[in-house]
C-alpha cells in the first residue's frame, strides 16, 4: 500500500537510510584514522599534512552524517505524515461500506474505533522494519567489518552488546505491561472521581449537593492505592533492569578488556582504541533505541494493528441488483431481527406491506422496536430471518448504490454537523447541489434565514468551535427537517424527531409533514398517539411485535392496546 502511493519517495528513503547507516560507521573509522595520524605525528614530529587531511575527512564525514541524519529523519517523518492521508481515505471508504448494524456490536465497535490508530501503527511497523534493514543493519554490518579487520575476536563484542540489552528490554516490556494492566483500573477510578468534582457533566450537581468532600475522599483513597501499586511496579521493573544492566555492564567490561589487551599487545593502534572506545557507547545506545523504543512500541501496538486487520475484514453489503422503481412499495415477510450479541430478537415475526403513496404511523412504548423496524424498512439493517422487499427486490440483493435511492429520513438522533448551513442541508444529497432545491427544502422546513441567526445566510458555519454560530434545539430541528426534504425521495421516514421541542412546534411539524407527504410514501414514528391520526394506517408495536394495524377509528373501536394508550394520553388533555 505504501509502495503504491508514493513509490519513488519510498525508495529514496531506503537509499538514504543505507547511506546514513554507513556514514555512522564511517565516522568511527575516520576518527581512528585521525587519532592515528595525530599519534604518529606527535611521536615522529612529522606528517602534519596527513593530520590535516584526516581532520578534513573526519569533519566532512561528521557533517555529512549530520546532514544525512537530518534528511533521513525528515523523509521518514514526512512519509509517515503522508501515509495517514492515503490510509485514512481507504479506511473511510471501508467504513462507508461496513454494515451499519455492526456499529451496534460492542466488540466490533472497538475494531472500528481503533482501526485508525491501527492503520497508523501498522505504518510505524513498516517504518521500523524498513529502517532496521536500511539503517541499523548497514551500520552494524559496517561496524562488524571494521572490528573484524582490527581484530577478529572483537566482533564478539557486538554479541555482548546485543544479547543483554535485548533480554533486558524484552523482560521489562513484558513485566511492565502486565503490571500496568493491574494498575489501569485504579487509574480509571482516580480519573473518574476527579471528573465527578471538576467535569462539566457533574460540576453543577456535585456543587449543589455539597458532595465535594465525599468525592475528594474517594479520589484520595483511590489515588493512594494506585500510587502504592505503581510504586511497586516501578520498583520491581527498575530493580530488574538494574540487575540486567549489571549483566550488560559485565559484557561492556569484557569488550573493554579485549580492547585493552589488544592495545597492550600492540595488536591495535592507540587511535583505534580511542575510536572504538568512543563508539561502544554509541552502539549501546543505538541498540537500546532499536529494542526499547522501536520493538517495544511495536509489541505494544500490535493489538491495534490486529483491530485494523479485523476492521478490513468486516462484512460489506454484497448485493448487486439495481432497484428500478419504488412502485411496488415495501413488503415485510416473517421478518425477525436481533442485534449482534443480543439473545432476544428486537423485532419478531413482522408481516407488513406498505403501498406507495401511503402514510403509515408506527406507535408503541419506549423499547417496543419502532426504530428497529424503521431501519429495516429503509434497508439500513438486513433481517436475520424473513425478507424485506423494497420496490419488489429483497433488500439483501440490492446493491449498496441503489438500496437507499429515493429514501430519505429524519432520525430521532439527527446529526448536528459542524459544517455550514448549506452543507448541513445538502449533505443528504451531495451529488446534486442545487440552489433552488436548497431554498425549497429550507422553506418546507420553516427554516427562516434571518440574518440574526445566520449572518452569512446559507454559508453560515454552524459551530462555535469553528468560528460560527450556535443554534438552539428548535433551529437544529428545522435544519434536520430541511436535510430530510432536500433529498429526492419517494419514501420519507420521520423517526420521533420532536422529543425536545415544545407542543406548539411539535403540532406544527406534524401538520407540515402530513401536508408535504401527501403524494409520497411516508412513515412516522411517534410516541404521541394523537399525531398518528394523520396516517392512513397505524401500526401498533409492543415488545418487538406488531399487535394491531388499522385506521385510528378502527383501532379505537377494537379497544385493544392502541385504544388503551390513547385513553391514557388523552386524559391529560381532557378538562
Amino acid at each position, binding site marked *: 500500500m505504501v509502495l503504491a502511493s508514493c513509490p519513488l519517495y519510498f525508495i529514496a528513503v531506503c537509499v538514504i537510510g543505507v547511506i546514513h547507516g554507513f556514514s555512522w560507521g564511517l565516522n568511527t573509522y575516520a576518527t581512528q584514522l585521525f587519532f592515528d595520524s595525530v599519534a604518529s605525528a606527535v611521536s615522529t614530529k612529522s606528517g602534519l599534512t596527513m593530520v590535516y587531511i584526516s581532520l578534513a575527512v573526519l569533519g566532512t564525514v561528521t557533517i555529512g552524517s549530520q546532514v544525512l541524519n537530518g534528511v533521513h529523519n525528515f523523509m521518514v517523518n514526512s512519509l509517515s505524515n503522508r501515509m495517514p492521508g492515503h490510509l485514512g481515505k481507504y479506511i473511510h471508504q471501508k467504513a462507508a461500506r461496513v454494515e451499519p448494524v455492526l456499529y451496534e456490536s460492542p466488540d466490533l465497535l472497538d475494531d472500528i474505533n481503533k482501526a485508525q490508530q491501527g492503520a497508523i501503527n501498522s505504518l510505524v511497523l513498516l517504518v521500523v522494519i524498513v529502517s532496521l534493514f536500511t539503517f541499523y543493519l548497514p551500520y552494524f554490518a559496517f561496524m562488524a567489518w571494521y572490528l573484524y579487520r582490527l581484530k577478529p575476536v572483537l566482533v564478539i563484542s557486538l554479541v555482548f552488546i546485543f544479547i543483554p540489552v535485548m533480554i533486558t528490554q524484552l523482560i521489562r516490556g513484558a513485566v511492565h505491561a502486565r503490571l500496568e494492566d493491574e494498575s489501569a483500573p485504579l487509574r480509571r477510578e482516580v480519573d473518574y472521581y476527579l471528573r465527578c468534582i471538576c467535569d462539566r457533566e457533574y460540576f453543577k450537581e456535585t456543587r449543589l449537593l455539597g458532595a465535594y468532600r465525599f468525592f475528594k475522599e474517594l479520589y484520595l483513597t483511590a489515588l493512594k492505592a494506585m500510587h502504592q501499586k505503581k510504586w511497586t511496579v516501578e520498583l520491581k521493573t527498575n530493580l530488574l533492569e538494574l540487575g540486567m544492566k549489571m549483566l550488560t555492564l559485565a559484557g561492556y567490561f569484557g569488550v573493554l578488556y579485549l580492547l585493552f589487551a589488544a592495545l597492550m599487545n600492540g595488536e591495535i593502534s592507540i587511535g583505534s582504541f580511542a575510536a572504538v572506545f568512543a563508539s561502544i557507547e554509541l552502539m549501546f545506545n543505538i541498540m537500546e533505541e532499536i529494542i526499547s523504543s522501536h520493538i517495544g512500541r511495536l509489541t505494544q501496538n500490535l493489538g491495534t494493528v490486529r483491530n485494523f486487520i479485523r476492521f478490513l475484514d468486516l462484512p460489506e453489503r454484497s448485493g448487486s441488483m439495481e432497484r428500478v422503481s419504488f412502485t411496488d412499495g415495501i413488503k415485510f415477510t416473517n421478518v425477525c431481527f436481533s442485534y449482534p450479541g443480543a439473545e432476544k430478537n428486537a423485532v419478531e415475526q413482522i408481516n407488513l406491506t406498505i403501498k406507495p403513496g401511503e402514510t403509515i404511523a408506527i406507535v408503541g412504548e*419506549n423499547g417496543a422496536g419502532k426504530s428497529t423496524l424503521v431501519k429495516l424498512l429503509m434497508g439500513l439493517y438486513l433481517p436475520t430471518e424473513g425478507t424485506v422487499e423494497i420496490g419488489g427486490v429483497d433488500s439483501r440483493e440490492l446493491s449498496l448504490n441503489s438500496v437507499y435511492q429515493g429514501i430519505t429520513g429524519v432520525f430521532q438522533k439527527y446529526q448536528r454537523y459542524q459544517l455550514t448551513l448549506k452543507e448541513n442541508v445538502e449533505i443528504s444529497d451531495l451529488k446534486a447541489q442545487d440552489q433552488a432545491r436548497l431554498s425549497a427544502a429550507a422553506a418546507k422546513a420553516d427554516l427562516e434565514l434571518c440574518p440574526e441567526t445566520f449572518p452569512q445566510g446559507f454559508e453560515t458555519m454552524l459551530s462555535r468551535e469553528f468560528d460560527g454560530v450556535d443554534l438552539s434545539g428548535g433551529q437544529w430541528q428545522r435544519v434536520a427537517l430541511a436535510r430530510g426534504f432536500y433529498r429526492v425521495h419517494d419514501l420519507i421516514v420521520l423517526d420521533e424527531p420532536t422529543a425536545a421541542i415544545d407542543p406548539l412546534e411539535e403540532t406544527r411539524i406534524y401538520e407540515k409533514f402530513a401536508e408535504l407527504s401527501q403524494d409520497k410514501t411516508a412513515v412516522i414514528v411517534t410516541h404521541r398517539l394523537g399525531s398518528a391520526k394523520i396516517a392512513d394506517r397505524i401500526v401498533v408495536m409492543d415488545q418487538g411485535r406488531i399487535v394491531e394495524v388499522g385506521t385510528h377509528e378502527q383501532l379505537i373501536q377494537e379497544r385493544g392496546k392502541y385504544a388503551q394508550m390513547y385513553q391514557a394520553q388523552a386524559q391529560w388533555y*381532557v378538562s
Partner: protein
Amino acid sequence: MQIEARRYGFADLIRLPLQAAPAAAVLVGLNAVLAGIVPTIQVLVTADFIDTALGILQGSLERSQIYSSLFAIILLIAYSWVTGALANLTNVKLNLGLEKNYQTAVMDKRARLQYQHIENPETWDLIQRVTSQPEAQLASGYNLLISLTAGILRIGGILGILIAEVWWAALVILSFSIPLFALAVKSGRASYQASKETAKLRRKSNYLATILTSRETVDERTLFGYSDYINELWHERYETARKIEHQVQKKWFIRTKAGGVITALISVLIVLVLLNPVFTGSLSVGLFMSLVGAAFNLVQMMSWGLSRSVDQLARYREYLKDLTEFAGLDESESGQVMPAGTAPQFRTLEFRNVSFKYPGTEKYVLRNLSFRMEAGRHYAFVGVNGSGKTTITKLIAGLYENFTGEILLNGRSIRSYHPSELKAMLSIVYQDFAKYYISVKDNIALGAVNRINRYEDWEITQALNQVGLAAAVNKLPQGINTPLGKIKPDGQDISGGEWQRIAMARAIINPAPLRILDEPTAALDPISESELYQEFERISCGKTTIFISHRLGSTKLADEIFVIGSGRVLEQGTHQELMALNGIYAQMYESQRSWYS
C-alpha cells in the same frame, strides 16, 4: 499546597515541584547535575588512561601503572549505568508526588471556581488546557530545565578543561559559537508559532474523519451516502494541513541539523586550535584525544537536544501563562461547603424585576422577571425551549450572582445567604442530572450528603420503592451496594430510565424544603413523564415543589402555573384560570389537546 493567584514564571517550574515533592525533586536535580559533571571527569580519566597506555607502549612506564586509570574508567561507566536506573525511580517518585499534591491542588482550585467559568466556553477551554495531566506537564517542565542545566554544565566542563589547558582557545570558540546558537534559538520561536496555526486546520479535518467513522453518524452516513464527498473534503483538508506542517518541519529539521553542523564545525575548530599545543607538547595526546572525542559526542546531543529544548521552552511559557490566568479565575465560597446541618425553614421565594444575561454574552435571558412563591404549594414553569426556565433555577441555586433586581428568600436577599444555607434549602434534578458511577446506595444517599455514611439500608430501599425502582435494584448482583457504571470492575449498567429514577430518589431523600424538577424526564414519552411528575408530587406532600416542562400535561396539577416567554412571566394562574384567560397557555394546551379530540 494551594494554587495561589499570582504570576507564574519559569522559576515556578522549579518551585512547584520542590513544594509538591521536595525529596524526589532534589534527588532528580542532583542526579542531573552529576550527570552534567561526569562527562568532564570522564574526559580527564580517559586522557590519563591513554597517556599511561602510550607511556607503556613507548616503554617509559610500567604495565602495572595502567590499572588505576583502567579502574577509574570502569568506575565511571558503572556509576552512570547504575544512576540511570535510579534516576528513573526518582523521576517516578517525583511524578507521584506531583500527582498527589499538585494535581490535587489544581482540582481544589477547579472545585472553588465560580460556576460561570464552567459554562463559559473560553474559560472552560483554558481550564481544560491547564488541568489535563497537570502533574506530567510540570514534571516534564522541571526535567527540561534540569537537563538544560546539565547540558550547560557538560559544555561548561569541557570548556573549563580547555581554558585550563589553552585559555585563548576557549575564547576563540566562545566568540564563534554564541552568535550561532542565538540564531538557532530565535528561529525556534517562529516554528512554534507556525505549528500552533496548523492545529486548527487539523481539528477541522479530524472532525470530518469523525463524521466518516463514528457510530453516531452511521445512520445518516449510510442513508445519505455522503461518504465519498466528505472523504474528498477530508483528504483535501488533511493535505492542506500536512503541506503547511511539511514546510514547518522542513525548517525545523534544517535548523536542528544546522545546529549539528555548527557544533561539528566548532569541534573541528577545537581540534585545529589544539593541534599546535599537542605538537609542542603542552597538551598531552591523551587529553587531546579524549577532548576531541567529547567534542564530537556533543554534536549529536546539541543538534537534537537544543532544538527540542527551545521548542519546549516556548510551550512551557504558554503553559505558565495559562496557569497564571487559571490561578486568577474568580472563586466562589460555595465550592467546598456542605449543606447546613439542619434544614432551614422555607417560607417565600420572590423574584423582583430580575434581569440577567450570561457573562460574556449580550443577550438578556431574563428581563424584569417577577414572581412570588409560598411554602407548601406546587408550582410549574412552562414555556418553549430557550425561554429561560432553566436559567431561573440556576439563579435560585446561587450559581450566578451577576443579576440585577432582587431575589428574596424568606424576604431576605439571596446574596446574603451563606452557600451552605442555600444548599440546605433546595434540591434540584436537572435535565442533565449526574450519573455517578458509585454504588446505588451512595448515589441516593448523596442527596443528604451530611449523613452519607450513616444511612440505613431500609431508608434507601424506601426511597427506591417510592420511585418504583426497588424490584430492578433487587435483581442487581449486590442489591443496593452494587456499583453502577463501568468504573469498578464489577459495575453494572442500567438503562436511562432507571438512572432518571435514581436521580429522583436522590431528590426525595434530600431534606431540603424546596424541590425543583427541571425536565429530567425529557427522554421519556409524555405519559411516563406525567405519571412520574404526579408520583413525585404525591411523595413531596408538605414540601414546596417547582416543576419545569415544555409539555403541559404534566404541569396541569400545579397550584400555580407560570408561563415563561422571552425571559418574563407572560401568564400565571391555575390551569383553569389560564384556560379561561384564553392566552398563550390555552393556545398551547389546545394545540396538544386537538390531537385527542
